[in-house]
């Protein structure tokens, strides 16, 4: 889209051809030349695949196509399947549920930790912050191997601790069922994502002035009342953005699910990302994989609009 704009403008500027304009023209061209490499890169690696995917989502790839026949046009049939086929709809429903549960848990725990940071003294705050930073910095795949080890059914620390607390979890196979797998995935996702929320909200909290809080408490406001009528309105913009980003990120969860499936692979544990992968890479069903990908992209864009508009406001 941006490149179309630039073409129009260069032609437009080039149309005026008097000597004093020549220099102006050079200056005018500069910004377009500067953004050109980035645009080419994006068109190549994202624009073209996106276009192909939109095209493929209206097609049907079958056995014939593996021998070189062009795919058949099927209109919106693939999109209809998303909402009618019970397997596909099951994946979509599970993904949305997983996304909402994870986003809510992450934001609630993140806000609680931010409030806690605000309530303790400097030394303890630093300890908490370092712990959160280390968790945040862990590469996803490394974090996954550690969590799989912690939840290992034979020698995992989690089964050991739960069993020694009196619950019978010895040799409990967490990753053997879809529910167990989602539980472990939720623990990992929340553990990884909470630090970002906690730090962002804490930065917002430091903007709330001490005097206002003190005045409110002298006027008899309980701490719950102070939280709902002073703190929440103050951190509301940050809270909205953080919650939005969590929803977007948790909708596309892939690495965690994929890695947890590696060790046991219970049936029916796919979420959108892993299901698209299975369809596209393993089964060669490009049309359905494309339609689901477009579905994910549309959801993402719908959720992103508010966040992007906020960023644009910051730009001007």
């Amino acid at each position, binding site marked *: 889209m941006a490149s179309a704009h630039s073409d129009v403008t260069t032609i437009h500027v080039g149309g005026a051809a008097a000597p004093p304009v020549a220099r102006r023209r050079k200056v005018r061209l500069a910004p377009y030349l500067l953004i050109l490499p980035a645009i080419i890169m994006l068109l190549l690696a994202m624009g073209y695949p996106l276009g192909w995917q939109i095209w493929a989502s209206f097609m049907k790839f079958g056995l014939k196509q593996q021998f070189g026949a062009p795919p058949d046009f099927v209109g919106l049939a693939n999109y209809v399947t998303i909402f009618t086929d019970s397997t596909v709809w099951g994946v979509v429903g599970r993904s949305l549920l997983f996304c909402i549960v994870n986003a809510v848990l992450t934001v609630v725990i993140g806000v609680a930790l931010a409030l806690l940071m605000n309530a303790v003294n400097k030394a303890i705050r630093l300890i908490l912050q370092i712990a959160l930073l280390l968790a945040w910095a862990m*590469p996803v795949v490394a974090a996954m191997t550690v969590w799989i080890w912690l939840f290992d059914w034979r*020698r995992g620390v989690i089964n050991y601790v739960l069993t020694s607390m009196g619950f019978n979890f010895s040799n409990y196979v967490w990753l053997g069922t879809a529910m167990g797998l989602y539980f472990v995935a939720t623990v990992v996702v929340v553990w990884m994502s909470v630090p970002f929320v906690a730090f962002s909200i804490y930065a917002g909290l430091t903007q709330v002035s001490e005097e206002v809080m003190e005045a409110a408490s002298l006027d008899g406001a309980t701490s719950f009342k102070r939280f709902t009528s002073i703190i929440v309105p103050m951190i509301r913009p940050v809270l909205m953005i953080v919650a939005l980003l969590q929803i977007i990120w948790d909708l596309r969860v892939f690495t965690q699910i994929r890695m947890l499936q590696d*060790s046991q692979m219970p049936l029916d544990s796919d979420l959108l990302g892993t299901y698209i992968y299975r369809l596209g890479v393993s089964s060669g069903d490009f049309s359905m994989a494309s339609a689901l990908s477009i579905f994910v992209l549309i959801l993402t864009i719908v959720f992103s609009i508010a966040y992007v508009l906020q960023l644009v406001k910051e730009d001007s």
Partner: protein
Amino acid sequence: MTTTAQPVARKTRHRVKVSRIVFGVIAIILALIWVFPVYWMLSSSLLPNVILTSSTPRFFPWGGSLDNYKAVMQGGTFLKALWMSLQVTLLSVVVAILFAFLAALAISRFKFRGRKGFVLAILFIQMLPAEGLFIAQYKMMSSVHLLNTVIGVSILYIAAVVPFTIWMLRGFVAGIPAELEESAQVDGCTPAGAFFRITFPLLAPGLVASGVYAFLQAWNEFTIALVILQREDMRTLPLWLRTFITASQARETDWGAVMAASTLVAIPVIIFFLLVQGRLTSGLVAGAVKG
């Protein structure tokens, strides 16, 4: 008035003190929970498998050694994956930063038609998940025979990090007043000379920060790599690390080696991350760091 106010104040102060201690204890417990997996990775990486698979876990690495690290390094596949990761990461970071820097100059130093559309497009593209495009990217790369190549995966990484890097650098370029350059030109510098002598050195921190961002993204990336790099000898470090888990289906997992391998992958990331985290957290723009 004062006589009634005083005891109330003392009472609240006392209550504040008690709650401070309670909150402090809770904070320490939560800090321990959050740091435990990281600690457990380090601790397990130092212990031999005999101890790791005993029925009671050993919570401190007494009697630990670097044997697991030696075994992982001598396996041969680690160095290969490391070399692959280095090539992909280096290529992606250098090209992405260069392209992003040029585009950031355009949007922060020039007013031009289509600027707003470009900024908007970048911000939206930045949000698009790899999971929503990887099948088409896989098809495209396979049709131009770039599957299992450094170039193929790097092109996708560059496109993935360029939008956010442009946005990040835009802030840094905008922070340097154009008047500085103009006054250098008044003093007889050429426009290019003014730029390289005045603006460029001031930009260094911004370039470092966005370079580290691009590094973290490329180094940790899993999804695109999984799709594009399917051949065993072309694995990057995250894919290599995953094979330890998939291999465990067949035989007993050597957890000591897995944890040593994870530590080797994680350490450069943790160091770089801690260096830039202040900049990444300040301002919510940093959001996209989660990958």
